C-alpha cells in the first residue's frame, strides 16, 4: 500500500527530528502511466502545488499528515510561497494592528503591558460572524513598540526612537505562537529601526536602520543609514540625510520606501543592492501620508493650482497620476495632509482622513467617473485615534517563520515550543494573562468594529454609492 510506503520514506528521509530540514525527492517508483498509485507525488511537486494556495489553506494543510506539516513548515516552502505570490487577500480588506496599553490599577500613569491585536477586516477570516483576530501579542516586552512596516507577511514592531540596545520584534501573525515571534537585537550603537525588507535575489531579510548625528540646538537632524542583514552583519551606509525622521515605511517589491513628509521626498532602499535612491514628490505643496494602491506606494497631493490627485510610484520609480480628484463644493472639501488611507473599489475611492482635530470629517467616498464626492461625518467616538491602530499596507499572509529569517533552523516539529516557561508557572500566571488579554480585547473593540464597518461600506461599492450614503447617514444620525 502506498501509504505505508510513504511513511517509510518519511522515516528514511528525515532520520531523526532536528535533522537539517526538508526531505527532497521522494520519488515514486518508475511507473507505467495511469496504472500507478494515484496521488503519490514527490516532495518537490507537492511543495510547488501547496505554495500556490492562499496562506490560510496552506496552513490548514499542515493537518493532512506529519510529513505535510514538515513540508509546509520548511524554509523552502516559505520562500517558494512568497515567490509564487500565493493569491493575495481578497479585496476589499484592511490589514491592521489595533493597539491598547494595559494598566493594572485605575489612575496608573504608565501602562505595564501592551496589547497588539492583528486583524484583517474583510480577509475572509471570519468566525461566529465577527472578524476573528488571527493573533494577538501582549506582554511588557512589547511596550513602546510600534508598528513599523510589514514584509512577506511578517510584521515589524520597534521603538520609534533611538535606543541602545536597539531591539525590534518580528512577528508573523499567521504562524503558531511559539514560532511566530522573534526578538532581534541590533548590536552596536544607538539605532532606530526604519523598516524590514526582503531581497529576492539575495534571499535575505534586512533591517534598515538609522543612526542619529544630531547636534544640540539644531532644528534639522542629520542622520545616516545602516543595514543589518538578519542572521548576518551590520553595514553602515555612506551619506547623510536631513530630516526629522518622522518617517513612514512601506515595503514593496524588494524595496523599502521611506516617506519624509517635511522634506518632500521619498527614499527608496533597494534591499538587494543596498542602494538608496531619493525620489522627489510630484509636488512640494500638500502631501498625504504614505499609502498603498495596487500594491505600490501611493500618495495624494495638492499642487500649486489647488487640484488634488492620487499618484502611484511605479516599479521603475516614476510617479504616475492615477486619479484626479475633481474640485469639490465647500461642503465636501477635505485636507490632503490628513489623508491616511485610500481604497480603490472599482472606480469608487474610499478615502480616510485622520484629522488632528476630532471634528474634521473622516470618511469620503469619491466616484471617479462622475467626479462626485460625499463625505461621512462620522461621530468622533466611532473613528479610532491614530495611536490606536496602524494599517499594515501590503500585508499578505505567508508562512515565513521569523526564526528562520534570523537564521535559526526551523525544525518544523509538531508540538515544539520555544522559550517555554515551566507548566506550573504558566498556570500560576494564567489568570493575569487572561485578564490583560481581555482588557486588551475590550479596549480594541471600537477599532475592530470601525474597520469592519469600513469593509462593509467598501463591499457595497462601486455600485451602491447611494446605499452607502444612506447607511452612513443611519450610522451618524
Amino acid at each position: 500500500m502506498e501509504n505505508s510506503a510513504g511513511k517509510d520514506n518519511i522515516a528514511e528521509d528525515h532520520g531523526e527530528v532536528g535533522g537539517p530540514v526538508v526531505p527532497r525527492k521522494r520519488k515514486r517508483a518508475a511507473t507505467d502511466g495511469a496504472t500507478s498509485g494515484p496521488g503519490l507525488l514527490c516532495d518537490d511537486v507537492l511543495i510547488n502545488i501547496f505554495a500556490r494556495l492562499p496562506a490560510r489553506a496552506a496552513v490548514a494543510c499542515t493537518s493532512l499528515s506529519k510529513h505535510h506539516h514538515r513540508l509546509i513548515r520548511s524554509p523552502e516552502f516559505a520562500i517558494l510561497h512568497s515567490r509564487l505570490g500565493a493569491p493575495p487577500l481578497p479585496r476589499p480588506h484592511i490589514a491592521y494592528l489595533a493597539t491598547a496599553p494595559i494598566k493594572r490599577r485605575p489612575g496608573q500613569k504608565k501602562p505595564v503591558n501592551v496589547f497588539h491585536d492583528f486583524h484583517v477586516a474583510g480577509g475572509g477570516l471570519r468566525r461566529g460572524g465577527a472578524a476573528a483576530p488571527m493573533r494577538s501579542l501582549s506582554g511588557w516586552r512589547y511596550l513602546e513598540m510600534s508598528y513599523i512596516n510589514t514584509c512577506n507577511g511578517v510584521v515589524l514592531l520597534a521603538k520609534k526612537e533611538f535606543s541602545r540596545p536597539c531591539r525590534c520584534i518580528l512577528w508573523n501573525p499567521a504562524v503558531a505562537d511559539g514560532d511566530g515571534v522573534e526578538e532581534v537585537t541590533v548590536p552596536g550603537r544607538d539605532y532606530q529601526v526604519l523598516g524590514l525588507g526582503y531581497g529576492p535575489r539575495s534571499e535575505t531579510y534586512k533591517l534598515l536602520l538609522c543612526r542619529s548625528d544630531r547636534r544640540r540646538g539644531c532644528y534639522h537632524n542629520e542622520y545616516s543609514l545602516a543595514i543589518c542583514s538578519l542572521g548576518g552583519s551590520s553595514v553602515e551606509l555612506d551619506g547623510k540625510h536631513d530630516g526629522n525622521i518622522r518617517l513612514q515605511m512601506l515595503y514593496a517589491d524588494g524595496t523599502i520606501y521611506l516617506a519624509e513628509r517635511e522634506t518632500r521626498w521619498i527614499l527608496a532602499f533597494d534591499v538587494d543592492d543596498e542602494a538608496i535612491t531619493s525620489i522627489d514628490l510630484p509636488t512640494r505643496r500638500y502631501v498625504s501620508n504614505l499609502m498603498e494602491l495596487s500594491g505600490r506606494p501611493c500618495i495624494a497631493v495638492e499642487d500649486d493650482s489647488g487640484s488634488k490627485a492620487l499618484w502611484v510610484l511605479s516599479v521603475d520609480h516614476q510617479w504616475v497620476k492615477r486619479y484626479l480628484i475633481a474640485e469639490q463644493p465647500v461642503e465636501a472639501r477635505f485636507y490632503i495632509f490628513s489623508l491616511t488611507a485610500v481604497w480603490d473599489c472599482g472606480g469608487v475611492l474610499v478615502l480616510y482622513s485622520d484629522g488632528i482635530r476630532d471634528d474634521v470629517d473622516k470618511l469620503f467616498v469619491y466616484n471617479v467617473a462622475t467626479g462626485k464626492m460625499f463625505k461621512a461625518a462620522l461621530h468622533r467616538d466611532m473613528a479610532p485615534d491614530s495611536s490606536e491602530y496602524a494599517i499594515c499596507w501590503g500585508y499578505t499572509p505567508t508562512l515565513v517563520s521569523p526564526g528562520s529569517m534570523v537564521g535559526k533552523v526551523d525544525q518544523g516539529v509538531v508540538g515544539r515550543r520555544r522559550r517555554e516557561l515551566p507548566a506550573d508557572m504558566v498556570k500560576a500566571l494564567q489568570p493575569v494573562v487572561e485578564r490583560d488579554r481581555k482588557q486588551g480585547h475590550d479596549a480594541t473593540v471600537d477599532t475592530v468594529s470601525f474597520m469592519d464597518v469600513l469593509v462593509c461600506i467598501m463591499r457595497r461599492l462601486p455600485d451602491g454609492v447611494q446605499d452607502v450614503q444612506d447607511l452612513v447617514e443611519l450610522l451618524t444620525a
Partner: protein
Amino acid sequence: MEVDKGKGEAEETRKVAEADRDTVTLKSSDGKLFEVSKEAAARLSTVLAGMIAGGSIDDNGTDLKQIGSEALENVVDYCNKHANSIPSAALISSSISFNTAPFKEPEEWERKFVDRLSHDALFDLVEAANFLGMERLLDVTCHKISEMMKGKSPDQIREVFNIKNDYTKEELEEIRQELAWAFYDD
C-alpha cells in the same frame, strides 16, 4: 519529418544529418517513441536542453524510464502546442508595470490543455514536467492541481493525494487550536 534522413547512409553523412535534425526522439518507460521539435524541447525543458547540448540524445529514442507513454504523449503535445501559440497581449507588459506577480496565469490553450486531463494523467504529467525540468508546464499543472484543492476539506484533500493521516486525535486538535484562524469549522 526528417527522422529517417540519416539512416542507411555513410557514417559521416549520418553524423552531419544528426546534428542537422530538428527533432529528437523520446522513448517512454513502456518503449513507445515520440518525436518532438528540438528547438521546443531545448527551450521548454532544462533537462532535454542539457541532453541535447551534451550530445546524449539517442537517435533511436532517448530513454525516459520514469515517464509513461501517456504522460510523454502529453509532454510532446504540450511542446507542439506551445511552439504554435503566440503569447497573448496580456502577457506583454505595458511600459509602466504595476503587476509584479511572478506567476503568469495560464493562457487559454494551456488551461484547456490541463482541463481535459484525467486526475491520474494530470498527476503523471506534473511528475514528468518536474523530471524534465519543464518550468512552465510544471507551473501550469501545479496551478491546476492547487485550484482543484480549493474549498476542499482536509479529508477530501487526503483522498485526492492519497495521504494517510498519521496524527493522533490529540495532535490534530493541538494543531487546529494553534492555527485556529486557518480552519473554518472549529
